[in-house]
């Protein structure tokens, strides 16, 4: 019997012929990703008592969570990280303004097919868009990887999601993701490797694909995999920082759960407060008042997302009493959106464009809601308190729906404008 993608990668990294779900293996990740939490990790690392990183070439640090620093505390945190980067000779360091860690890892050719990426951030599965096995870990675990170059991992059970057909006009990969999470629940893929395939996935551009593994973290997944095809290989041609070998699941692999979706059935969706699995068709919540619309984050802050939003906002204006905040996911995206005129469109429409980073996604700065306000955001998480105050409501949707809601001042789809 064949192996799933996760089983194949973990077996090969552990030097074994095969592994089974539940087995614990020790592996050396190809990439160890952290962000603003690197300072705290360094503190733990020092307690371990080794003077230097075991494999500095695998360590990647990207400052994104509160950038540029909104307070002296945050600035001090960044300063400590710059010092650590110098002390430890870390070459894969991206300072404030470069962009969101998951996006940068892909853009810089550091997330590669068949490799293992471990990151001290829950949305690390994002790198599965490149065909990597990417999983989130905690800070102590990252410190331990810095010290030893290795970590224990449990071989996950696997879930396969085959998506046939084609997404209808006005429907984005975010809607597909929300539909799946709504169906399976916030623990629908707990501890699992979620492996996608099918013509609808192949038809998506890389930006739209990335939304899927990114948000699988909200379904409890350990990692999520999309098969690297020619689009991925072309993208990596000029970017990949190392040679790599594509790993695909075996055709006769055993999947704990095997699901099929028809993309043509998917409709525009929103996740209602306070859980990403609390989904409903846009039509059902249309008309809900919106105080702030936020377009950005690692989930939907890429060029194609901004293009979709700009298409809606062109020649229109944000509704009186509603605010629009746009944050490109990276410097590269920012520049491309600038050249394409999208940023001008946002500003002309009455929106605000901020420098690349996470912004208000987790309530740090650049547009946190007031008590009692309603936000609609392109992010991946809407837990109570996520954007700074527990007394506010956060809806999640696609860039198309968020842009249309900004114009309408209430939840809407572009088709309703």
């Amino acid at each position, binding site marked *: 019997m064949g192996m799933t993608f996760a089983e194949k990668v973990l077996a090969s990294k552990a030097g074994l012929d095969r592994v089974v779900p539940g087995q614990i293996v020790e592996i050396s990740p190809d990439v160890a990703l952290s962000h*603003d939490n690197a300072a705290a990790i360094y503190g733990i690392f020092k307690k371990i008592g080794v003077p230097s990183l075991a494999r500095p070439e695998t360590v990647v640090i990207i400052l994104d969570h509160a950038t540029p620093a909104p307070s002296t505390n945050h600035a001090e945190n960044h300063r400590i990280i710059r010092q650590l980067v110098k002390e430890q000779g870390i070459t894969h360091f991206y300072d404030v303004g470069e962009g969101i860690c998951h996006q940068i890892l892909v853009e810089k050719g550091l997330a590669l097919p068949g490799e293992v990426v471990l990151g001290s951030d829950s949305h690390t599965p994002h790198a599965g868009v490149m065909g990597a096995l990417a999983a989130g870990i905690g800070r102590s675990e990252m410190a331990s990887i810095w010290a030893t170059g290795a970590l224990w991992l449990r071989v996950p059970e696997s879930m396969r999601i085959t998506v046939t057909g084609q997404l209808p006009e006005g429907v984005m990969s975010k809607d597909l993701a929300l539909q799946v999470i709504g169906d399976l629940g*916030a*623990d629908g893929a707990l501890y699992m490797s979620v492996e996608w395939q099918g013509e609808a996935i192949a038809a998506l551009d890389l930006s739209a694909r990335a939304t899927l593994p990114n948000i699988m973290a909200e379904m409890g997944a*350990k990692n999520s995999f999309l098969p690297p095809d020619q689009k991925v290989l072309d993208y990596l041609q000029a970017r990949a920082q190392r040679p790599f070998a594509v790993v695909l699941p075996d055709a006769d692999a055993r999947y704990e759960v095997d699901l099929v979706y028809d993309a043509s059935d998917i409709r525009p969706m929103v996740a209602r407060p306070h859980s990403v699995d609390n989904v409903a068709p846009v039509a059902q919540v249309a008309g809900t008042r919106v105080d702030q619309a936020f377009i950005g984050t690692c989930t939907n802050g890429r060029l194609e997302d901004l293009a979709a939003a700009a298409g809606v906002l062109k020649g229109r204006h944000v509704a009186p009493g509603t605010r629009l905040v746009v944050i490109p996911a990276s410097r590269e995206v920012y520049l491309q959106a600038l050249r394409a005129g999208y940023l001008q469109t946002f500003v002309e429409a009455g929106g605000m464009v901020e420098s690349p980073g996470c912004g208000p996604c987790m309530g740090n700065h650049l547009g946190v809601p007031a008590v009692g306000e309603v936000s609609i955001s392109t992010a991946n998480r809407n837990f109570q308190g996520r954007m700074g105050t527990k007394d506010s409501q956060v809806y999640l949707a696609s860039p198309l729906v968020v842009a249309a809601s900004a114009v309408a001042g209430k939840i809407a789809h572009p088709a309703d404008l």
Partner: protein
Amino acid sequence: MAFKGRVWKYGDNVNTDVIFPGKYTYTVSDPAQMAQYAMEDLDPRFAEQVRPGDVVVGGANFGCGSSREQAVTCLKMAGVGAIVAKSFGRIYYRNCINNALPALACAEAVDALQEGEEVEVDLEAGEIRVGSGTYHFPPLPSMALAMMEAGGLIPYTRKKLGLA
């Protein structure tokens, strides 16, 4: 290793943001201080009234959400002896083991345990004992037990590197 405490009972999908709010993640760095924000957005009484050995009980997917380890540290520092849930968020479960805070998956016990009642947890015997009976949880994987015994991943790593 056995201990006694009171039950603090919550529902399904208790996420890391309500256990330890994101707004403190870069402003509160002293572990001892984290305890005072534990469960702030879920149960304002908790941080003030929790006592050493108390047991937090949750439904399915306890600790889902962010990778933030403070959501484990704050409970550990508040003196919580164990968390009993139907299932755990993946990273949260790892963080518990890595911080030597027993994370016990036992659906029967979760259904039986009542808010505020006294409970005894015996890690070696794999038992949760309350008035209504005794409930068994599966033994932790050997790697996890070794880590618990060492006091967490960091002391465990020091041992492995010959530093302790």
